[in-house]
């Protein structure tokens, strides 16, 4: 701006650096802990500089497993989490796009009724309906299945509303033009609406993938079988090793592994993601 590089300029950077330290320090500790061996992690004081066993720890966690879940290599949990997060993200997007399409562009009987039914589910997150949802899933025989992990979380009023907002900003002229050219509703949906909401879908995908990946309470309730553990709750189980001290070097290595897929998704879709959050006009 108009000022010279002055006191405030350096103050800004000081604040940014401080912020990075606050955010980064626990991360750094995690990384450092993942690179030492068991003996070093049991000693005081806690190491602040990395050791030399980072890759051994990673490999051991990935292929041999940790703690109580020893017989369960981490890659199985990662796989379960991946399946769960992907099916939640895709399921939510497909259902929301279609229902928003129906609500915005079709005039059918009970339209407003269905709209309000969707609205009401906004007030019923999993935490509120723990018991009934558990009951339903148990009666359907979906405990300890990947289906049971994802299906109860797929319905999403938020995403439906978001797509409704997006569709409402699409100019009517486009619909009219498509009609003139003889396009049916599905063709209009596929060739006009979907390309127009591409960035929104991408942004939503990132958010929903991370939402699904981070699910904690639900997997905790319905999975007792080690083959179905997701990574987030699997880490919790590793901490529960009663008869021995937690193997911090392996647990922290697992957390680093657990963070990798969300990182890849965000990095891969960052461009679209930021666009989808900020741009508004079509």
């Amino acid at each position: 701006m108009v000022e010279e590089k002055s006191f405030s300029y350096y103050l800004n950077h000081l604040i940014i650096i401080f912020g990075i330290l606050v955010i980064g320090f626990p991360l750094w500790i995690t990384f450092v802990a993942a690179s030492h061996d068991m003996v070093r992690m049991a000693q005081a004081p806690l190491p602040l500089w990395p050791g030399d066993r980072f890759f051994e720890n990673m490999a051991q966690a990935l292929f041999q497993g940790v703690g109580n879940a020893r017989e369960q290599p981490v890659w199985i949990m990662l796989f379960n989490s991946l399946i769960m997060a992907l099916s939640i993200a895709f399921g939510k997007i497909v259902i929301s796009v279609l229902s928003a399409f129906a609500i915005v562009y079709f005039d059918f009987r009970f339209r407003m009724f269905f709209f309000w039914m969707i609205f009401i589910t906004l007030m019923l997150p999993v935490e509120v309906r723990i018991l009934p949802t558990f009951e339903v899933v148990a009666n359907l025989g979906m405990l300890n299945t990947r289906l049971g992990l994802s299906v109860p979380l797929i319905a999403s009023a938020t995403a439906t509303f978001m797509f409704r907002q997006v569709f409402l900003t699409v100019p009517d002229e486009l619909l009219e033009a498509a009609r003139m050219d003889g396009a049916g509703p599905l063709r209009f949906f596929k060739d006009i609406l979907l390309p127009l909401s591409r960035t929104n879908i991408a942004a939503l995908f990132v958010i929903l993938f991370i939402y699904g990946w981070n699910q904690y309470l639900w997997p905790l309730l319905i999975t007792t079988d080690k083959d179905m553990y997701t990574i987030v709750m699997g880490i919790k189980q590793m901490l529960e090793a009663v008869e021995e001290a937690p193997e911090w070097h392996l647990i922290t290595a697992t957390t680093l592994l657990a963070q990798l897929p969300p990182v890849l998704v965000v990095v891969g879709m960052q461009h679209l993601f930021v666009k989808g959050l900020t741009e508004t006009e079509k």
Partner: protein
Amino acid sequence: MSELLEPPGVISALVLISFLLVGKFFNFISYRLMKERIIAGQQWDLNICCGKTDAGVDWNHRMNGNHAMILIILAASWKQISYNFLFFIAGMQAIPRSLIEAAAMDGAGPFRRFWTIVFPLLSPTTFFLLVVNMVYAFFDTFGIVHAVTKGGPSQATQILVYKVYNDGFIGLDLGGSAAQSVILMAIVIGFTVIQFKYIERRVIY
């Protein structure tokens, strides 16, 4: 604001890194790690959180409910920093640069520009984040509580969602748990109403 965005490399890297942290594991793992250390009575290098601190506080969150609560709050807020940061960045980028330039021409310093232009224009974002963070504090802190304190010591950190889970699935008091769910639902409805009543409405500049 614009000064804040000058080094684009650093900032975009920061946005990226911060969003990566959305995971729950990191904080509860590292906090739990620190916590274990404290319990073992081991002195920790940076002297941040252990034993008797310089101020003479006898830190023990396994016995002291307030300390346990502080630990949970620290861990939970740490996790939300990146999320809030991202939305503030997006909000600030939406503020027309010409407004800030005009104020600078009129001789307003950086602090004055922030308080009289950027901050008021950000108020929708701030309010949105306020509601989102409250919802987060109600519902998503379950993981941290469950992993770090298990609601203890003597129920000092027993948040409502944890209690619903604990009574229903550990204590097997299904009726009591369901009744608490209804209270929880009332709270959710309250938040939803606030969200729709105030957030959807744009603040008029």
